[in-house]
């Protein structure tokens, strides 16, 4: 009798755990540009006296619930990534002005060539991101600089307040922040070396 009661209790607990696991938030959160901007000290004077246009961003993917699991649900898409690049470079102050329209002296393109997320703990995710950036002088359409930048970020989710995909979103946003931080550093070095 005692054994049957214990078994019943165990079945209830396991059933509850299974239902809880299966019903954990079914909507994939989207990465937010405001969380993807690195905090970098702005120089007093722009490194370049010219303006920059954030031209094309390609290779991104839309977030969505798939059969692959929460690590595949959160994706970095073109529009949010472009917005994050724009805000980051505006904040970095490397150029006289940074804009989205076609009025810049230079154009920056970005191609997200690889992105992935994997679970490295109970509610911990690591995201990897590889982006190919190119800077083009619009006067003669000449490619001045081109670099492949890799970044990764690990984030823990908060127990009870965030679901698995919340942790995955934080990891992806962190990977973008790290990538943009490297972009700013390398663009600054390039502009310093080619100051006119």
């Amino acid at each position, binding site marked *: 009798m005692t054994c049957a009661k214990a078994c019943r209790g165990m079945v209830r607990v*396991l059933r509850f755990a299974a239902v809880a696991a299966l019903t954990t938030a079914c909507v994939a959160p989207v990465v937010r540009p405001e969380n993807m901007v690195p905090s970098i000290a702005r120089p007093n004077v722009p490194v370049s006296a010219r303006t920059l246009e954030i031209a094309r961003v390609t290779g991104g993917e839309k977030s969505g619930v798939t059969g692959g699991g929460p690590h595949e649900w959160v994706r970095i898409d073109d529009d949010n990534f472009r917005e994050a690049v724009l805000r980051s470079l505006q904040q970095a102050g490397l150029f006289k002005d940074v804009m989205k329209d076609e009025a810049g002296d230079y154009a920056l393109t970005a191609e997200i060539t690889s992105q992935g997320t*994997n679970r490295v703990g109970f509610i*911990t995710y690591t995201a990897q991101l590889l982006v190919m950036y190119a800077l083009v002088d619009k006067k003669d359409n000449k490619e001045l600089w081109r670099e492949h930048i890799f970044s990764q970020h690990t984030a823990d989710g908060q127990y009870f307040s965030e679901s698995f995909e919340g942790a995955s979103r934080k990891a992806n946003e962190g990977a973008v922040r790290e990538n943009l931080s490297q972009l700013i550093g390398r663009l600054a070095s390039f502009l310093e070396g080619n100051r006119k």
Partner: protein
Amino acid sequence: MTKTVVGIEGGKFMRKALVLFWLFLLVFTGGCATGKPMAWVEKGTSLSRYRQLEVMPVSNDTGKEYDFDVVGTLTEKIRSQLTDKGYGARGGGAAGDAVLVLKGRLTAYEPGSAAKRWLAPGHGATHCTVRVSLIDKESGKSVGEIIVAKAISEGGLFSIGADKSILEVVASDIAETLDNKMKESRP
């Protein structure tokens, strides 16, 4: 009679409990490395023209030191996996053959702990990330990238030795991904 009925009920619940417990164990003790490899090849580049591969020693970009030679082990395993697939990863090939250089970088590695995984599933994860740049030896230009990130976050005591076995899995994924990319670009 009553005793028998209780026995049957108890047996039924015991069976249910065991099935659920087994499923629970299956989920939390799988000990499999997770994470899909990512690959990119420069547009218009055909990897099939490369007849020879040169595997450079994997560099440690993690800024950490480990109990054993992680990057040396990884380099050997990548070479061995590629040799098994029929690529001349240790040299050889005819003079004048196009050579593809594999420059690997260990960007993340945590040996983890099987005991922690056993006591608290999800904790003490073993994980490893390797980025391999594919470089054309002649021009020095990068023609592709392979990123393999693997993690073993469950498995408890069944995952003892994961700190070393994960390197084998990562090397195997690198070789498999490269092999697929080379076959894909064959005319």
